[in-house]
């Protein structure tokens, strides 16, 4: 969409006005600074997704809408998670982080902050693998996605 103030609120407003849900939403400018790219995750029947797509297309500032589920695609989400890390926990969490191919990016005597990217499912799985009481704080970006292979989204 056009990288203009207000464009994001039009999208968000559309979803609340029409009763569609937003699971997650990420947005940032692209290599062309006049454009932003947004990845929006929603859940609905085929009919609802079709309406969502059409309604988004109708917004004047939206340049192009694609449903990534219609083809092969890659999805990634970034999570930062602060966990308690005391005593034996320190090794265990480090191992777990390795298994999930995350990295520890901040350390104190009592905590680790871990950076993890992957599909939203993988991030969920990581959180499940940790003792719940050890999780002090999480922040997630929501998924962003791109088509597989040489196919490119052009406007």
């Amino acid at each position: 969409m056009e990288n203009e103030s207000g464009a994001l609120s039009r999208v968000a407003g559309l979803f609340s006005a029409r009763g569609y849900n937003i699971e997650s939403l990420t947005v940032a400018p692209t290599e062309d600074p006049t454009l932003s790219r947004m990845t929006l995750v929603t859940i609905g029947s085929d009919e609802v997704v079709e309406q969502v797509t059409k309604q988004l297309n109708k917004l004047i500032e939206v340049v192009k809408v694609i449903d990534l589920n219609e083809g092969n695609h890659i999805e990634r989400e970034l999570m930062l998670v602060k966990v308690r890390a005391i005593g034996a926990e320190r090794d265990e969490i480090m191992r777990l982080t390795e298994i999930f191919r995350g990295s520890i990016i901040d350390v104190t005597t009592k905590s680790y902050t871990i950076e993890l990217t992957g599909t939203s499912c993988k991030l969920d799985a990581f959180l499940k693998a940790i003792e719940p009481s050890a999780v002090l704080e999480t922040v997630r970006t929501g998924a962003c996605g791109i088509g597989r292979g040489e196919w490119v989204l052009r406007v």
Partner: protein
Amino acid sequence: MNVELTGAEIAIRCLQEEGVQCIFGYPGGAVLFIYDELFKQDKVRHILVRHEQAAIHAADGYARSSKNVGVALVTSGPGVTNAVTGIATAYMDSIPLVIISGQVPTAAIGLDAFQEVDTVGITRPCVKHNFLVKDVSELAMTMKKAFYIASTGRPGPVLVDIPKDVSQQLTQFVYPDKVTMRSYNPVTKGHSRQIKKALELILSAKRPMIYAGGGVILSNAAEQLTELTRALNFPCTNTLMGLGGFPATDKQSLGMLGMHGTYEANMAMQYCDVLIAVGARFDDRVIGNPKHFFNENRKIIHIDIDPSSISKRVRVDVPIVGDVLDVLKELLKLLKAEKKKPDSAALKEWWKQIDQWRERDCLKFDRTSKIIKPQKVIETLYEITKGDAFITSDVGQHQMWAAQFYKFDKPRRWINSGGLGTMGFGMPAAMGVQLANPKAKVACITGEASIQMCIQELSTCKQYHLPLKIVNLNNRYMGMVRQWQEFFHGNRYAESYMNALPDFVKLAESYGHVGMKIEKPEDVEGALKEAFKLKDQLVFLDFITDQTENVFPMVPGGKGLSEMILV
């Protein structure tokens, strides 16, 4: 080097460049510079309303009756919030408007400044698009885009919010002659393969039905729709918004369909085997309960310029995204070249069935009553104006009777708020109609409740000598509400009785107009004739009508189209 103009001058110059002759508005602090520029020129005429809601309705009536974009000008804060009802009304009915609103100076935005509201935020859900102009250098292009967006594709209102300092800033003025937007490219031409598929389906139909909506009016395709319908000998029904898109007096017309549609139209809609929807959006007031609608099998062709109108409430078989005018022209061309003809034997049977439905005479009413029947007033109005007046209406029973009993043969003659159902629309809209069509007969059909929602506009009508005929069907009730309470709420008429009504005759007179009160059926015709003889006067006709009359047929909420309550 060119001379520099202020933002205010530029705003007015843009209107001139767009050929705007008439705008409707109300001044205030944030738009004073713009008013100052209006004052200094005489190409754009400004009509001073008495309430901003009326400014928008008037611009809307102007647009609906003239094919032009309607323009309104309001101040920040309360000016804008007053305008919102009008904007939402136009949005629901896809009417092209450009609304210019004043805003507090850019430096004051966000500081809870005097008369500040988040105009872009408040209006966002009820405009096709809106802009906040942050720099005077963007103003001309923004105005150009506003007119372009409002009038192309599925039309709609576009708002341009201009902060006061922007209206003072200087820049060179160049009005762009073209605008291209990578994110907005409405389709006009329909997909030719889809159109071919549609024609095949049309020619295979045994019980066809054409269901034509507001899109036919908006795309100026009444002539093509009429030609196609006649060439095929198919029955045609119109939505409330589509009246006049096919001549109501044509023998192939089944009248309006839907909640208060005719028996024959609703039955044919339910039992057709091929439905051709033309610029109509399968509104809930039109198809009744969708589940019941799909108890019958039929194939649906849907022509609409807005992809999101297609398969929104009803799955269709042959979607055609495009401008009705283009698509109908293409269909007509293909039809002429086609050897196969419609199945005339099947059509004969179908028409026989339809004629049987017609015999039910669903719009009958007591013609011997000693009390004025509202239907009779409309019928007489139709006869006296020879079906050639512009009719606006408010919202309620009177609106439905107007739609049922005034036979519109031409497009853009019937002007009402269908989608939002805005009481108070009728008189201000009629002002816009009269200004766009100075010589035409313009009547506003209203009720004693609706008319009071914008009654202050009687003053505007006086100032600009607008000789409207206000046909007030005074039943002392919010009749439409009372009808629902009678049918669905055990006759408990909660707050729907209109108490303490003004003396409308004196009220009209106090504004300098003519008032008439008509209480007997035998006086209806004479009064209407006299009113139209007073060519230069606004006449307020207060018809004291039957309090208990109901609108029939009626498809009750949740019921199917064929489950009408009939008289």
